[in-house]
């Protein structure tokens, strides 16, 4: 009996949490048009979220491209297919690694700073002060950050993939000596713009929404104490990462299940 009560209570708490998060998301979406009228706020957020993630995203993309090219080369050269290196690196980056790894980095780099910022604004009662002055904090604070995240994420993922492919080119063509013409030609003949590149960027946009909404929600709902903000920041990284990986599986199954 006790078990039943606990289960029921747990389910209700979970459902309440989900409903709360969904309402929060809808409220934020409703505030988007109002925040677009003050475009300067959005621009400042694209800078804070996008520009300042550039270095980590591009450095990681380059490293992933280097390593992928090296590892794939060892396997492919056994079958005399070293020229397909470009294709394999391209497909793995554009379809999976580009969106997923840049989203994980994005959650760590931009998501945490959003949570900490909102959480501290709440702890410092800035959000309550705004409400007192009849300024909607969702339109003034949250919605510009949401737009900034959604705009930045596909751009960052595209940069990650592009830099990764260039890195693979450097390793494969310049260091190992794979033929440059074949490297690009096999890639171009097999990679489809809409199916591969387009779907990859669509994934990145979905991950952008997930990361930003999770980060903002955690910040907004954080306990207004130093420990509360610290916990919320940790939760942001854990929850967004799990969501990204789960959503990636579903999106991959939907997008690429037919060859």
């Amino acid at each position, binding site marked *: 009996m006790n078990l039943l009560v606990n289960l029921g209570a747990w389910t209700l708490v979970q459902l309440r949490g989900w409903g709360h998060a969904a309402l929060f998301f809808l409220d934020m979406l409703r505030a988007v048009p109002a925040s677009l009228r003050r475009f300067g706020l959005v621009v400042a957020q694209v800078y804070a979220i996008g520009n300042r993630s550039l270095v980590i995203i591009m450095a990681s993309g380059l490293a992933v491209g280097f390593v992928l090219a090296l590892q794939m080369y060892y396997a492919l050269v056994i079958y005399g297919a070293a020229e397909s290196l470009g294709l394999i690196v391209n497909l793995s980056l554009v379809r999976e690694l580009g969106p997923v790894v840049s989203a994980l980095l994005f959650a760590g780099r931009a998501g945490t700073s959003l949570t900490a910022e909102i959480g501290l604004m709440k702890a410092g009662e800035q959000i309550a002060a705004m409400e007192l002055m009849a300024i909607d904090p969702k339109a003034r604070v949250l919605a510009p950050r949401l737009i900034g995240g959604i705009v930045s994420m596909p*751009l960052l993922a595209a940069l990650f993939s*592009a830099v990764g492919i260039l890195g693979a080119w450097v390793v494969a063509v310049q260091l190992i000596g794979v033929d440059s013409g074949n490297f*690009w030609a096999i*890639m*171009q*003949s097999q990679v489809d713009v809409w199916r*591969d590149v387009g779907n990859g*960027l669509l994934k990145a946009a979905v991950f952008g929404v997930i990361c930003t909404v999770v980060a903002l929600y955690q910040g907004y709902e954080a306990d207004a104490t130093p420990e509360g903000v610290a916990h919320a920041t940790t939760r942001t990284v854990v929850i967004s990462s799990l969501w990204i990986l789960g959503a990636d599986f579903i999106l991959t199954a939907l997008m690429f299940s037919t060859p």
Partner: protein
Amino acid sequence: MNKRTLEALVGLFVLLGVAAMAFLALKAANLGSLGGGASYTVQARFDNIGGLKPRAAVRAAGVTVGRVKSIVLDGQTFQGLVTMDIDSEYKFPKDTAAKILTAGLLGDQYVGLEPGGDDNNLAAGDAIAQTQSAVVLENLIGQFITGRADSAGTTGAAPAAPASGPAK
């Protein structure tokens, strides 16, 4: 930081991202080789298309001259009807033959065109009469095995079975 520098930096970021997307689409995918020049369509019916896929290359003498546009089953003849887009700058004689070939041992399949000697050229919408189907490995192995069995069973008889195989 003043407003103009901030906006310039954001503009730079967006420009970089868009440039990366353009790079992915044009250099690292097939947008650059899509469309482009004008083309005309030619059809060919094959008994078996093997693993040919839409967007596979159409090559003459190894040079890519077009792409496979669509593959459907012809309901009347039960053959695979392959529609190809060929670049308008390339003209082929009317009696050109089409074969489905494989690049390398395990590579992609493509359509190979072998020009004939006719004075008239293929026009848009024409069908190629002479076709040769893809080689299906299972059939080939089957023929090999039955050929071996026949020659083993009838020692000294005329080796008729192996030769009749791939003549289609």
